[in-house]
């Protein structure tokens, strides 16, 4: 299913029916099984789902960074009108870090421990442009200032282990921004940080993206994190997008029982102190997913009909979900 744009501009990214499977000894793990996504230039999309729902694999598929035994077995990915799946590795390499950048979850592991920060920043620029090291260094310095790093010259000379986790993640974000990409995929970039730094970084990234017109896919399992950040939200479950829509709509009128469950498990002002509702059960094994709604074993609205895979229902321009019995009736 595709979330259509409110505007008529050509989408920056269009993912259709993406299928990325891991061919393991025990069978095919369908980590991503028919994902559709669309992103306008400058738009911020929150990609939410429990652990193992396929969020990271979706991101890596877009970058062409799926390693065996994983393989993209179907679908299409278009970026700026170009078919990424048809691209040669050389062309993809030119795109990575230049047009599409990423930030990973764990800041302690994304920077190479034996290389200084300046080395790792300068090489990211020089991989895409012929510039002198001095010029590249200057640019690296400027971006560090932009992401709020004090005394950047000193930080440039540091090794990663000499910096705090928050500082490292800022540097990772700075690296993503270095070449002014059109799209940043941020894969749970604040999960490993403490809450106050989390808030700061989210705020800064949002400002930077707005400023430069960079589109952003913010991957998280925490709905609360992106409620104040994203223009649109896509909810992922067991390798599929089960619901997408504008942030306000999703938060206030969830259609899919799984989205509802996610929202109910977020602590908020009114529910503070009260017992939080948790979605019962676990994500099903992606190995033995058969026909039918993958959520049905955990769904309080499930019926016989849910043994068949629900199709996409569209509501208005930007709202879609995959459920036979949506929360608010689906008929408004």
């Amino acid at each position: 299913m595709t979330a259509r744009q409110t505007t008529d501009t050509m989408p920056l990214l269009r993912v259709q029916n993406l299928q990325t499977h891991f061919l393991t000894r025990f069978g095919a793990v369908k980590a991503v099984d028919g994902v559709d996504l669309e992103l306008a230039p400058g738009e911020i999309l929150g990609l939410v789902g429990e652990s193992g729902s396929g969020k990271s694999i979706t991101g890596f598929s877009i970058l062409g960074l799926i390693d065996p035994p994983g393989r993209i077995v179907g679908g299409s990915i278009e970026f700026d009108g170009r078919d990424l799946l048809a691209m040669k590795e050389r062309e993809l390499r030119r795109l990575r870090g230049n047009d599409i950048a990423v930030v990973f979850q764990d800041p302690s592991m994304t920077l190479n421990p034996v290389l200084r920060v300046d080395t790792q920043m300068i090489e990211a620029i020089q991989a895409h442009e012929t510039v002198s090291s001095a010029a590249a260094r200057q640019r690296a310095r400027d971006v560090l200032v932009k992401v709020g790093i004090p005394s950047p010259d000193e930080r440039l000379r540091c090794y990663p282990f000499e910096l705090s986790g928050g500082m490292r993640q800022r540097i990772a974000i700075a690296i993503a921004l270095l070449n002014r990409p059109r799209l940043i995929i941020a894969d749970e970039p604040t999960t490993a940080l403490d809450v106050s730094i989390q808030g700061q970084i989210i705020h800064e990234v949002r400002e930077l993206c707005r400023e430069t017109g960079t589109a952003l896919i913010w991957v998280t399992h925490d709905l609360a994190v992106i409620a104040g950040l994203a223009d649109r939200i896509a909810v992922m479950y067991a390798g599929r997008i089960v619901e997408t829509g504008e942030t306000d709509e999703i938060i206030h009128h969830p259609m899919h029982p799984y989205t509802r469950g996610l929202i109910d498990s977020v602590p908020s002002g009114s529910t503070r102190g009260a017992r939080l509702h948790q979605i019962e059960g676990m994500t099903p094994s992606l190995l033995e997913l058969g026909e039918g709604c993958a959520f049905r074993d955990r769904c309080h609205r499930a019926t016989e009909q849910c043994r068949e895979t629900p199709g996409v229902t569209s509501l208005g321009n930007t709202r879609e979900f995959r459920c036979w019995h949506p929360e608010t009736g689906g008929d408004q």
Partner: protein
Amino acid sequence: MSAFVINRLLQAFFVLLVMSVLVFVGIYLVGDPISMLVSPEATDLERDAVRESFGLDRPIFVQYITFLGSALQGDFGRSFLTGEPALQLILERMPATVELVGFAMFFSVVIGVPLGIIAGLRPEATFSKVIMTGSIFGFSLPTFWVGMVLIMLFAVQLGILPTSGRGETVQVGPIELSILTLDGLRHLILPALTLGLTKASLIIRVTRAATREIQAMDYIKFARAKGLSSSRILRVHLLKNVLIPIITVAGLEFGQALAFAVVTETVFSWPGMGKLLIDSILTLDRPVVVAYVLIMVLFLVLLNLVIDLLYMVIDPSSREKVRD
């Protein structure tokens, strides 16, 4: 940093002291050298005279204290057999061994690291499986056997390489080198190959394991995501990290081989220190054995220090630990 070095040197001194006692007592227990020093027909009187002249009649701890006193002044005593200073005997033999082991280690790193990386990057490829199977043979076959086979093949069957001695040498200052003459080099090949084969197998396995581990790291994926070329990722991001365990292993192996290249040197009659050690043990030439072991301990301790310093150059986070 200098505190670190001084600390290590103090430790080394302590280790040497303990080792000297152990070796001294050990060699005392191995056998009585008198029987090697006098003819079998010698009378008891003659025996006692010889015993006395070497100071062997005194209690062991007195012998030890005497030895320690001179050793602290750099005098390790004289060989019972030749009368030459033990230290000089060992140092004379050192260049031959350093040459052999250095060449073997060079060979094993130059061969082992690239093969290990290939096997680590493409674990499923047939070529990688061939490398790994080969490396199992490489280090499970005993050195003397490998030496014999190489001799059979290149010397006996093909008759293209010599099998014994150093060949023609060149005098460089006080040191004699084989590596500078063609003949010397030809003599060096088989023993170095014999020794290097085991080492190369080990380096291959260490490199492969490190490569696989590093390859799966987030920072490698991040480097790819930055759009770096695969050659830069390999040369800079991967290799620098893989080198950390390799330096440790290669360094320790180098020390081990240098101190105890006994088998290879015996098989190829290579006139190095290992040959000297085995000869001295067989003739119960106590001063040489004791001096040898102590010098090797000193050498290994210093080598460890050098490895640690190198380590700090490559792995910046290890510098941190040293500061405290």
